């Protein structure tokens, strides 16, 4: 498959453009992956040795190719180009030159073997410029896990090229009303295998993952007043985190997993609090009479972004993690909420009100440059993929609220259909 390596620069529109110009080209790539240079990898079909399970081999091969094709940082060398290369087993240098001549930068070669229900994958990635082996791995598992083996290999490639975890075993927790009440659900990042996590028949909202992927913090009306609960999705048990009187909402884990920041308060006020998970009382960080909500812990743990109405309209502020040094972050928006840190810690996606609609905006802390993507409908609740190359968000463009995930070209792809689906929370891997 070939893919345009550079999305049109016009896809990022300045905030000052009138609303009727929105909705033409809807590509997020330049805001999620500015300056992206895709690595072109040739993946000729892995050699299948006698004994390798046929169905497992097919599943592995097709999954691996699909994954690499979906990786934002990697481009798969087109099949017709792969076929152009004549492999000369006696002359490795010449063969490498042939691969490079058709545009490949790396070559992923491998074999499939095994016996009975076991599949063995051996893979090597060659840097075609130097001829060195950049990566090699041997995977062995039951044939029923052939797809997982492919996902693991593809994740390794993404990690190799980006330094960040690949998305292929990642999942998205979200809120859905498809069962009749707002419950927590989880699905694969591409929308497959949706599972209902809660059946409280109450209101469950605001899911947030612990960094290790073991716990989901969320707000529940199960006991009347909205409280913060922790859910262990793999085991299904709940424990309360904060039952302060009044509201307890919008949890965000510290990057080391030791604390949760959240919004709570009595008598109509909401402030940002932090509670240690090991036990202990919540500590209040803000003390304005305004709405303070939606804390988001920065990836390095030193700062917390939050929404406050202290200047009238909701705007995003930053403070040090101890609650000091509060400063306003968004200045050009009439409304800014739902701050979400990119894994790089230098960009923040948020929900802005522009042209009478909610839109996803991204602010770069280094340059203070703000980008808004021309998107259809109202768009909110941005959430980054673990490698920071993709965004999940919620749009009502179909009339119902659905979750969208950007594809390798940066174009949103709808991944939910039943009911309304909200508040995506992406996790590298369920533990």
């Amino acid at each position: 498959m070939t893919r345009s390596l550079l999305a049109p620069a016009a896809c990022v529109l300045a905030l000052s453009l009138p609303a009727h110009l929105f909705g033409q080209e809807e590509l997020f790539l330049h805001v999620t992956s500015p300056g992206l240079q895709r690595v072109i990898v040739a993946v000729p079909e892995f050699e299948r040795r006698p004994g390798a399970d046929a169905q497992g081999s097919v599943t592995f091969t097709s999954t691996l190719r699909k994954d690499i094709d979906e990786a934002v940082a990697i481009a798969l060398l087109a099949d017709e180009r792969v076929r152009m290369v004549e492999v000369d087993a006696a002359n490795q240098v010449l063969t490498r030159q042939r691969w490079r001549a058709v545009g490949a930068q790396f070559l992923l070669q491998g074999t499939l073997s095994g016996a009975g229900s076991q599949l063995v994958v051996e893979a090597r990635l060659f840097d075609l410029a130097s001829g060195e082996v950049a990566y090699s791995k041997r995977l062995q598992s039951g044939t029923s896990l052939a797809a997982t083996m492919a996902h693991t290999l593809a994740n390794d490639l993404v990690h190799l090229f980006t330094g960040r975890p690949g998305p292929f075993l990642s999942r998205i927790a979200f809120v859905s009303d498809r069962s009749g009440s707002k419950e927590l659900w989880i699905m694969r990042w591409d929308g497959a295998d949706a599972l209902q996590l809660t059946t409280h028949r109450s209101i469950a909202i605001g899911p947030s993952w612990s960094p290790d992927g073991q716990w989901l913090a969320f707000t529940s009306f199960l006991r009347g007043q909205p409280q913060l609960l922790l859910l262990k999705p793999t085991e299904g048990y709940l424990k309360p985190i904060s039952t302060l009187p009044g509201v307890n909402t919008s949890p965000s884990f510290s990057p080391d997993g030791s604390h949760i920041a959240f919004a709570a308060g009595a008598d109509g006020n909401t402030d940002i609090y932090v509670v240690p998970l090991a036990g202990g009382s919540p500590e209040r960080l803000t003390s304005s009479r305004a709405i303070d909500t939606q804390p988001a812990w920065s990836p390095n743990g030193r700062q917390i972004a939050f929404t406050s109405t202290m200047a009238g309209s909701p705007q995003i502020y930053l403070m040090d993690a101890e609650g000091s040094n509060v400063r306003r972050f968004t200045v050009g928006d009439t409304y800014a909420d739902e701050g979400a840190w990119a894994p790089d810690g230098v960009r923040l996606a948020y929900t802005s009100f522009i042209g009478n609609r909610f839109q996803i905006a991204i602010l770069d802390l280094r340059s203070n440059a703000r980008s808004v993507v021309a998107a259809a409908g109202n768009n909110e609740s941005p959430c980054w993929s673990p490698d920071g190359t993709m965004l999940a968000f919620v749009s009502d463009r179909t009339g119902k609220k659905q979750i969208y995930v950007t594809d390798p070209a940066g174009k949103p792809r709808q991944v939910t259909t039943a009911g309304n689906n909200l508040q995506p929370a992406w996790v590298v891997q369920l533990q």
Partner: protein
Amino acid sequence: MPRPNRTALVSGVVALLIVTVAACSRPKAVVAPEVSPSEEAGQPVAGADRGDATQVQSEPVITTAEVPAEAVSASDLPADIEQLNRAGYLTDAFFDTDKADLREETRTTLAANAAWMKAHPTVKLTIEGHCDERNTGEYNLALGWRRAGAAKAYLVSLGVAADRIATISYGEERPFAQGRDESAWSQNRRAHFVITAR
């Protein structure tokens, strides 16, 4: 988690259960014939005499007629909390977009509510803060909380005891009108008054 008391239950979303819990505490001889007129007179209804809310909940109708005489004399209000709420003694307060400030007519509404509360000193209520679907869900929980708090604070400033008023925010989670236009949104930006005890 301790078992919630009656007020806490009422402030939740289990109003029906509350009615039946209240019914349980009343003499069964009064309850039985009203609940199930087809039963032979004097025969107790199954479950009604056990003080078991779950059992009683399945019974069809509980009317004011079952209220003992002394309860009626204690108040001029209907005994049934649901009926009391349907009677419209208290008026909901409405808000501007993204605001929790009390409008002038809202203050008038709330002053009438406060006067009624002072005239009925045993009544307790929950003020629910609600929002339209615009703004984000989490922000709306905070905004609804603020609206409930503003309404409560005004009633308290007019002399209603603070411990008679519970507050809760439902944000945009329990809309009154389902439309996606201003006529629906304006209905959903409200502080909703729910009587929880008479």
